[in-house]
């Protein structure tokens, strides 16, 4: 019924930007996790998830993002987000995710902060 989430990556070692397009449900979350773990294996310790192309997420998808945050904390890395819709950002705050993952307005601001 819905198309599979599209995930693309821009590698800028030691940082990488993950772009999503579509609904982040369980399959979408798993696809993001697959890409994220490949990047972690490739020594990318900072991941920026740009959700400009995602207008809706569900709690199962977000739970998988929490798994990625857990993994990043284990390796002393970080997962950050940018270009969230106001509702997705509000949801992340409701869940307390913002305590463990930085949220930036857009990619330019995020890269400026994360590259320091």
């Amino acid at each position: 019924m819905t198309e599979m989430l599209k995930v693309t990556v821009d590698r800028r070692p030691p940082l990488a930007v993950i772009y999503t397009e579509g609904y982040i449900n369980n399959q979408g979350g798993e696809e993001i996790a697959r890409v994220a773990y490949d990047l972690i294996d490739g020594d990318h310790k900072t991941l920026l998830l740009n959700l400009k192309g995602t207008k809706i997420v569900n709690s199962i998808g977000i739970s998988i993002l929490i798994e990625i945050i857990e993994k990043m904390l284990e390796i002393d890395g970080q997962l950050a987000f940018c270009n969230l819709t106001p509702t997705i950002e509000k949801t992340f705050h409701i869940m307390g995710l913002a305590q463990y993952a930085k949220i930036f307005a857009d990619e330019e601001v995020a890269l400026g902060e994360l590259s320091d």
Partner: protein
Amino acid sequence: MVDSTVMREVTLTLPMLPDMEIAASKTATALAEFMEMSSDKIDEVRMAVVEACINSFEHSKADDHKVEIRFEVLGNDDPEKLQITIRDSGVGFAPDTLVRPNIEEKLKAASKRGWGLTIIKGLMDEVDIHSGPNGTTVVMTKLR
């Protein structure tokens, strides 16, 4: 006090199949747009509907594998409130015994799940849950 006249009503019966929650979210969006809600509020309603459907799909164990959803636009001359009732005929649960999930604990836990009701309550203006052995009904409302 918001008048409770039903200005418009839509009912859906959805099979518990992957991504069927999107069908419900589209109906919610159409009605919220009719009410001229802000785009942020429409998104909040849409996400709450998705979560309520997923909760039923995942946890109800309903024999008929169906969820019934009633969308009601309430108001008088102008639409004031969108009320959404989501009902399944599953095994039910005890809403009062649910513990609000905590991110710190979830980060350490094997299961990161269990956020649905927290998200719904955070996004909607009112949420009532009635649950028993014959099923669960969630009534949630958003003011325009």
